């Protein structure tokens, strides 16, 4: 296990300054099915927190609710000191909370490079009037392109820059999704299975890049991942979900020993 496990969120008496994300009493049902059933969760600023659990335990739904793509039934979500549970997804993104999806959601009518260039916030050329005069946004575009070039190169997909994003492999789509997420300079990123479908060596590299990003930019990560052998080497703290509830939390090596977690995974 990694030696980084000493960095873990404090108990519930944490101030909102220490915790970048605080979720309390969150509930979401779909026609009587309690997908999220009273979830309380705190993510410490600058940490890498894992969110694990068997399939169907509500992890991705939790991401959807926090990210604003699904409206919660009850509960409070506070991000960086602001209540966000009624905000639209684009406003949540602008506050600095980014996310990726379990099945990559790319823009298939655009190339790999364009997918990455889309994400930076408040681009001048996104205004239709400015769009007609490229002199107004050329410089910013080149800056973003340089940043995209470096990220794509690091993730070893730079050579695909002008391929349609529909024409790349599933693993490459995962990498592109990650590059695009980094392009938005978020304060916190929620990554839904970032290493799924990626070769083991690259999966570990992805987590190394996540760790580097955390160290240097202070970006906080909340990560859903089924490849626990990789995840546990990098996370500071883990939440375990089952049937819409958080059934355990703590350091990775402690959590895996809990009977409730073993029961949840083994049925």
């Amino acid at each position, binding site marked *: 296990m990694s030696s980084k496990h000493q960095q873990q969120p404090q108990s519930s008496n944490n101030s909102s300054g220490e915790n970048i994300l605080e979720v309390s009493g969150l509930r979401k049902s779909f026609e009587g099915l309690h997908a999220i059933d009273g979830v309380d969760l705190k993510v410490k600023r600058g940490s890498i927190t894992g969110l694990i659990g068997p399939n169907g335990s509500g992890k991705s739904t939790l991401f959807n609710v926090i990210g604003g793509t699904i409206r919660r039934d009850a509960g409070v979500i506070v991000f960086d000191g602001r209540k966000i549970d009624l905000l639209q997804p684009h406003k949540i993104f602008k506050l600095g909370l980014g996310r990726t999806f379990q099945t990559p959601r790319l823009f298939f009518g655009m190339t790999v490079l364009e997918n990455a260039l889309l994400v930076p916030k408040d*681009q001048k050329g996104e205004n239709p009037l400015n769009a007609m005069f490229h002199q107004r946004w050329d410089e910013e575009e080149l800056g973003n392109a340089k940043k995209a070039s470096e990220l794509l190169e690091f993730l070893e997909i730079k050579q695909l820059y002008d391929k349609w994003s529909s024409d790349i492999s599933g693993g490459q789509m995962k990498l592109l999704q990650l590059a695009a997420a980094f392009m938005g300079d978020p304060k916190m990123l929620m990554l839904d299975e970032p290493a799924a479908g990626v070769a083991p060596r690259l999966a570990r590299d992805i987590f190394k890049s996540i760790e580097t990003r955390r160290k240097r930019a202070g970006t906080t990560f909340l990560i859903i991942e089924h490849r626990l052998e990789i995840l546990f080497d990098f996370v500071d703290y883990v939440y375990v979900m089952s049937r819409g509830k958080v059934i355990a939390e703590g350091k990775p090596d402690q959590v895996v020993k809990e009977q409730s977690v073993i029961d949840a995974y083994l049925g």
Partner: protein
Amino acid sequence: MSLNLEYGFGGQPNFGQVLFYGAGAFTAGIVSSTLIRLYSGFPPADICDVNLLVQREAIVNSNGGIAVAIWVVALIVAIGVGAGAGLLASYPALRVKEEWYLGMVLLVAGEMFRIIARNTPQFFCGYNGLAGLLQPFASLDNVVSLKNYSPELAEGIYTAVILVLAFICYLIVQRMSNSPFGRVLKSVRDDRIAAETAGKDINKVRKQVLIIGSAMAGLAGALYSFYIGVAIADDYISAVTFSLFVMIVLGGIANNRGVFVGVAILTALDRGTLILGTLLQGVFPHFDPNLLSYLRYMLEAALLLVLLMFRPKGIFPEGRVKTKAYTLFDFGKGKKGEDETTSPPAEKQTEKKNEEPSKVIEQQASATTTKQQQQ
């Protein structure tokens, strides 16, 4: 071009394009008819009164400068009304989650407009339409020396002006689509949820694209009404919208050059069947040339089916969003970017190869931290 911006790039299936087109035509007609009488010192009268048509034509024929000025004002107002109608139409657009429901709403709105215009003689001159809209350059045909030189000079000039305005619209759409705005449009088209989570306000984008597209459609309608000299409700049937869709799909969705090709093919088909009908009538006097107008629709459909089977992305498939960003990547690879002659930025020339991944991330992260500190 406007429908390509809305549907091709923005993914908004505007089945009611004819509404904005028709709104532009009638607006231009009403503004022009009213202003001509006002300028001539007459009080505004019933613009549908056939007795006033001759008077209006006489004013236009005798005073070319004023005719052009009034035409320009009419076009500007038509653009404004088109944009306003687009803004109104965007409200249901914001409330429907699936774009195809928006298409249905607009289809119904377009048909409602036609029926209301057809049955409202007070505003739209009812079944007969608003006649007597002279081309702005009509007075040139009265200059005897010019008439001897070219009997259809006014029509020729007007056609040239339409082509120039069409080219300007092409440039506007081309520039918008090859910009960050173009990327945002495509993102909303491709995956609404992913676009939102990437920080794009999709409601704002939908509104913007409908306003811009409808303004252009308003302009097109105004130009058309002056070209044919009448604004009549039954010219704005839903089939017109579907012909526009066929043009776009044929030429290539989200490809502005493709739209020109699609327009050329369908126009050639339209005029071709018309000429063929006349020729056949010459050989067979009992032949009804109207039969060929149905043939035109059949040919359109057949062409569309063949294309969808063998070239589903159209004659000219969608291209990449050409911005300067590609110059960083294309340089030295023989790729064709928009600015092929542009030298790569200095930083590219000094870029270190095979840089350590962690260093790259560190550089990025440091830049981010600095940016956040500045903020």
